[in-house]
């Protein structure tokens, strides 16, 4: 498999789309259908891997597909940050597909073909977004992602799912149409280009006040980054089957949001301009507020998935915070957190789904003593929680470290304090769950005390991603190398 990097980029978008078509064709043969999903996921990951070498060498593959309007192209360009995101999304898709098969069959869910088709389309959109060469391409990936995940959120097709779907679509479309789109058109008008360029395109084109307003439009407009007050869609999306929450609402969709924010900060505003103009300062505090407030809300949620959703809102704010620090260390910390949080949160959701599949429990307060019944699941939950809190020996340590260095670089000691407080809050709301599982006595004595894990196809993926959290601590070099490539460019 030796492609030109540019064709490999195009292939990364087309492969999942072709997969979606094949999955639809295999409607009548579930085993064949699932094979198609797995093969597509593996092929996509292999294809994305071929791009790592060139990107590490400093090459930026570039491909102009078509001009939608004069000067406005559908353009793919791959830089190190996008590489990182593309890798995370496509790699975790494989694990998640295995898990989906276990979960969907274990729970006898309906409309499985549509589920896998939408999933594949969502992945294509994620790849397009990760490799977007300008804001228009990014917006296209962003919106396709919104629409392809809507049927997944409303998968159960009951009143609750429909209400959740309305909130989901309402918030995401409202922010993208009312805030993000005008921001993009304004950049096109002010700077004459919407391409992502090193050092940004806005420097010297706008006043600091305009830049501040634009940055706010971009950050709030990227509803997928879930900055308060536009975070409600994320808890609402939890009505979806758990594999959707795991890959899309802990990895692909939300990371698409924070990736957009990072990319806009770095390649549209430029970090220098962002810090000199002071445009990022107000948003920094919005991120800080979201970070703390969402942690507090998470504390009060008894529903496991809702708690994890608010935890995600809080963790996404870390990455936005990293971009808003407007230092390269801060951005690197945010980008590392994109990986670390993806591994950790997907594990947590896998665990939540496994608990639901095996024991049909959804509330935190029902989990007393469950750790003895499901030791692997709760063990993985513990590992992933520690990673998200940022304690060694888990991968999340590094992102906290980099973020704190970034805050110190920017001379914002108070942000250091905020990060410390947030870690404490994380400990309280995340560790409660494995503590209940392992330390409290079981609520009812009906069980025979034996181990009753979810199906193997559910448990194996969550052990794998939990192991990933540990590996990321001892072997963070691949991620750091990509980040170094980015910083040197």
């Amino acid at each position, binding site marked *: 498999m030796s492609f030109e990097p540019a064709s490999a980029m195009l292939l990364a978008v087309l492969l999942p789309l072709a997969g979606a078509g094949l999955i639809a064709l295999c409607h009548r043969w579930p085993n064949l259908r699932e094979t198609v999903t797995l093969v597509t996921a593996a092929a996509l990951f292999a294809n994305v891997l071929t791009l790592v070498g060139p990107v590490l060498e400093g090459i930026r593959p570039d491909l102009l597909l078509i001009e*939608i309007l004069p000067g406005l192209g559908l353009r793919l360009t791959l830089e190190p940050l996008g590489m990182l995101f593309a890798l995370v999304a496509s790699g975790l898709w494989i694990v998640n597909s295995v898990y989906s098969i276990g979960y969907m069959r274990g729970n006898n869910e309906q409309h499985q073909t549509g589920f896998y088709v939408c999933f594949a389309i969502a992945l294509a959109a994620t790849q397009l977004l990760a490799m977007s060469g300008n804001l228009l391409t990014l917006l296209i990936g962003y919106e396709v992602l919104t629409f392809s995940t809507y049927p997944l959120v409303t998968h159960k097709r009951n009143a609750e799912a429909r209400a959740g779907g309305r909130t989901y679509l309402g918030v995401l479309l409202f922010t993208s*149409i009312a805030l993000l789109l005008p921001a993009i058109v304004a950049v096109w008008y002010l700077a004459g280009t919407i391409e992502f360029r090193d050092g940004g395109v806005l420097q010297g084109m706008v006043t600091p006040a305009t830049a501040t307003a634009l940055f706010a439009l971009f950050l709030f407009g990227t509803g997928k980054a879930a900055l308060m007050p536009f975070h409600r869609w994320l808890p609402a999306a939890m009505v979806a089957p758990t594999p959707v929450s795991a890959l899309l609402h802990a990895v692909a969709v939300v990371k698409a949001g924070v990736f957009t924010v990072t990319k806009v900060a770095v390649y549209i505003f430029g970090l220098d301009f962002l810090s000199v103009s002071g445009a990022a300062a107000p948003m920094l505090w919005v991120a800080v507020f979201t970070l703390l407030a969402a942690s507090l809300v998470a504390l009060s949620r008894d529903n496991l998935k809702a708690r994890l959703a608010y935890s995600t809102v809080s963790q996404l704010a870390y990455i936005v915070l990293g971009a808003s620090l407007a230092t390269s260390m801060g951005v690197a910390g945010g980008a590392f957190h994109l990986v670390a949080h993806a591994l950790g949160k997907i594990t947590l959701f896998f665990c939540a789904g496994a608990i639901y599949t095996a024991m049909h429990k959804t509330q935190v307060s029902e989990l007393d003593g469950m750790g003895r019944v499901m030791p692997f699941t709760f063990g993985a939950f513990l590992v992933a929680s520690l990673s998200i809190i940022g304690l060694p020996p888990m991968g999340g340590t590094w992102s906290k470290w980099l973020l704190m260095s970034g805050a110190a670089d920017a001379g914002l000691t108070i942000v250091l304090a905020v990060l410390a407080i947030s870690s404490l809050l994380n400990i309280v709301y995340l560790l409660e769950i494995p503590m209940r599982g392992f330390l409290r006595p079981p609520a009812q004595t009906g069980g025979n005390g034996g181990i009753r894990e979810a199906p193997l196809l559910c448990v194996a993926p969550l052990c794998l991603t939990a192991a990933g959290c540990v590996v990321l601590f001892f072997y963070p070099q691949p991620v750091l190398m990509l980040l170094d490539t980015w910083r040197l460019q």
Partner: protein
Amino acid sequence: MTGLALLLEQLPALQVVLPLLAAPVCVLLRRPNLVWALSCLTSLGCLGIALTLARQIYPHGVISYAMGGWAPPFGIEYRLDELSVFMLVVVSLAASLVLIGARQSIQREIPADRIHLLYAAVLLMLTGSLGIISTGDAFNLFVFLEIASLSTYALVAMGRQRRALVAAFQYLVLGTIGGTFILIGVGLLYMMTGTLNMQDMAERLPPVLHTTTALAALAFLVIGAALKLALLPLHIWLPNAYTFAPSMISALLAAISTKVAAYVLIRFVYGIYDLRWSGLNLPLNDVLALLAVAAMLFASYVAVRQQEVKRLLAWSSLAQIGYIVLGLSLATSAGLAASTLHILNHAVIKAGLFVAVAAVLFRQGGSTLQLADLAGLSRGMPWTTAAIIAGGLGLIGVPLTAGFVSKWALLQALIESGTWLYVAALLASSLLAVIYVWRIIEACTASTGDRDIQRREAPLGLQLSIWALVAMNLYLGINSSPGMRLATEASGRLLAPTAGVPL
């Protein structure tokens, strides 16, 4: 070879004459399928001519054709510039794509002994519309406008329900008022300039532009065109006409009638009058912009509250007409180009949606389609549902659909003019569009509960028409560069300082 060259020279006249001759032939033929085939061939022929003309005009500029050999400004001149040829393509393309699928739907909805009359009226409407676009003569424009309007009234009246007659009558009264206003305006202009040739008028008008007569003429022309265009508050005929007309006719009306009226407005306001250098302080652009904004917001809001699908789409059309008028009211090249582009894009999107509704009605029977009737559609007619979703996303202006391209162009034009309130109105209108479109989509995917509605996909012809329009919608969403270049050139010519002589 010379014969072909001779034929090529006659094309500007031929494309109007072709449907005009085909109409009486329809009446003589009477056989429904033959008549349908003839109409399809005629409109495809017009499309072919329009495309040939476009290929001549875009590199070489304006074509002037003297009807009957009488030289302008004394004879009737057919004058085709970039804008008119763009419109010719829009109209003949939309007519062809809708007519291809019309056979079965018309057969089901119209009594067999009247089908040939319906197609004759469609061809006359096509004649009128193409004539309005190609003529360079103001009075001739009025004549074609009446041909188009009269045949449209007849078409609306052929709807299944008796209320179609009331709708047609309402349309007739208001349409006639609009036509008369235009006639008065043209008369006053003739009085002041002594010519009916629009190019000639534009040249002779500046010295007398400040007179009350010339200004009154402008008022009559603008209001007359706005009535035909159904610009708020002159819109009341449109929702009923679209709702009660035969399903495929609604698609034709949505794609053609109001679009041609928009063209007429552009011609009057920028082709004949050019207020920008007149020194007159007329707030015409502001008035048009305000009405457009009102239409965008109010009509979208009303659309959100509709229960009947065709009526909902009609109100959505009123809002989209607001987009078109807002763009042209800016009096900038970018704004006019955005309007022109949206004329094409909205024609394709809305025609696709109405044809999809026709397909649903074909299977369901009846002449109105409540939102609740759509339940279970995604199971029984998955392809039609997909087409409805694609069209709906186009109305919202989601990337990769034609609607996004127009919205982008319009937003850019608005930001360029610094009219931030209009930007906000456009975005608010898009958000309302999200709501009404989502009501349709949710209705289509709703489960039927216990009721099990037996539905199959519509026949091939309708499918073909739907998917041709949807494919156009998506194609224009991905590759609008050629269209945008043409629209920019068209607006550039209209707004060029040489078009009107500066005072």
